[in-house]
């Protein structure tokens, strides 16, 4: 009697399924609980990985609910690589699709924020742009383009996701107030720092990421935020080491990333 990995795998993820014939204990009895050790190892280790990956979601839902959700998620979206540090990419959309959770509309975006923090932690190192590089003729500056560090992330939400994240990770943090937040994640050294952006900052950075010049991106941001404060957002990026290069008009575009 040959036990294929197909048979073994099917019974692993479905506790209601019969244990494949051909497995036994030392005395040729069927394995019973012995097979459950493998079932448990898989389910428990992946559930544990989800708790570690999304601690704020786990806190918001409660540990038991998180266990249940993780159980559903790991069967629908099992890891596609052994790199568990990146597991859970599909979790925000999975949460958005859960009808029972639709009254907690902010959950998917909070999950996106947690995912982005983890991605930032593992992103490639880079050399930050020297702020002096910005001391050029203002007109040339407006016509220049910026490159971002691999560890920089922008998460935009109609919910106060930074306030919710902070309230659940920091003792004594203020209670979240209604209103959307754009969150910038920078990694000055090794620890990602999420910060809310001033109004218009998200529009500006998003336009820059799409390849707009500093000036054109400013116009985009000013359309919805007439008093957009470019300097404040730029300062956050510079302080966080989130910019790697400035390319003036007509210059060859050379992004600088370092390999580990």
């Amino acid at each position: 009697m040959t036990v294929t990995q197909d048979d073994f795998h099917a019974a692993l993820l479905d506790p209601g399924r019969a244990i494949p014939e051909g497995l036994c204990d030392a005395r040729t009895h069927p394995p019973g609980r012995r097979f459950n050790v493998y079932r448990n190892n898989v389910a428990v280790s992946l559930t544990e990985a989800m708790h570690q990956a999304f601690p704020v979601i786990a806190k918001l839902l409660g540990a038991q609910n998180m266990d249940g959700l993780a159980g559903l998620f790991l069967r629908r979206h099992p890891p596609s690589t052994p790199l568990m540090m990146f597991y859970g990419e599909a979790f925000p959309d999975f949460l958005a699709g859960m009808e029972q959770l639709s009254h907690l509309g902010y959950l998917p975006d909070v999950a996106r924020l947690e995912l982005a923090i983890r991605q930032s932690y593992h992103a490639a190192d880079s050399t930050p742009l020297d702020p002096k590089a910005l001391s050029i003729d203002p007109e040339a500056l407006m016509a220049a383009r910026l490159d971002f560090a691999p560890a920089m992330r922008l998460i935009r939400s109609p919910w106060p996701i930074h306030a919710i994240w902070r309230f659940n990770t920091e003792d004594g943090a203020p209670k979240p107030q209604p209103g959307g937040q754009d969150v910038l994640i920078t990694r000055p050294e090794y620890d990602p720092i999420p910060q809310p952006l001033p109004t218009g900052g998200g529009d500006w950075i998003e336009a820059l990421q799409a390849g707009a010049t500093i000036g054109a991106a400013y116009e985009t941001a000013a359309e919805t935020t007439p008093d957009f404060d470019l300097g404040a957002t730029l300062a956050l990026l510079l302080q966080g080491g989130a910019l790697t290069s400035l390319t003036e008009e007509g210059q060859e575009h050379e992004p600088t990333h370092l390999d580990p």
Partner: protein
Amino acid sequence: MLDASRAPSGLPSLPGVGYKPQHFSEILDAPGPVGWLEIHAENYMGDGGRPLAQLRHLSERFPISVHGVGLSIGGAGALDPDHLARLKHLTGWLNPASFSEHLAWSTHDSHFLNDLLPLPYTDATLTRVCDHIDQVQDVVGRRMLLENPSSYLAFAESTWSEPDFLREITRRTGCGLLLDVNNVFVSATNLDFSPQGYIDAYPLEKVGEIHLGGHDEDHDDHGRPLLIDSHGREVVDPVWSLLDYVLDRSGPKPILIEWDTDVPDWPVLRAEAARAQTALERLPA
């Protein structure tokens, strides 16, 4: 087939520990008897940041063993070429003293199961595992060590004993072996064989590294002991005794303490490493 005449690994015959980031400063300041470190390969396959920076730093002080947990060498399907490339990249820049993986499968149709799953010891499995090891050693460009699993059940179809199966793999591929003494004890208890008999049949001359770890105790449906390899506590006395039995026959070897869940403070882990040092020191010089 690689040159099997060299020592199975470049690790020193000293105690080592599985590296945990929370011990970073203490390992550097007060390593005690710890002479080398082991990392799980998959935790250092990100693009940058603190994990890689710490690893670069530690590798300047300690020999490093790269221990893979995700290659699925016993998998029915082909090895994942992307994962092989990641291993090649990591071992390429780090140039570790040892590289090891498991006699197990963990991926099914590109779904990673995050556990080491068991194999029937048959001629078909032997051929497949040897082909995969040849491929790994070819791509990664170095000899690997293969670790014995902890078993909770057996396959009725198996025609090889585990020590004979491992010996034949080393003969065909030139790979070395990682002997997990706790796994031998766990499997022997669960499957009712003599752990000393296992060691007597096992090719100790191929061992490049020894693993020790803690296990949990449970019972099967018939009330018989069922030990579970949890790496979450101290190594038990019978496993230390089995280590002595091994060392008396193999001579000194690099000995790793594995502690992966409920990771203790550094002094507790260091004390386990000190106990391994005592086991090495009692051997005749």
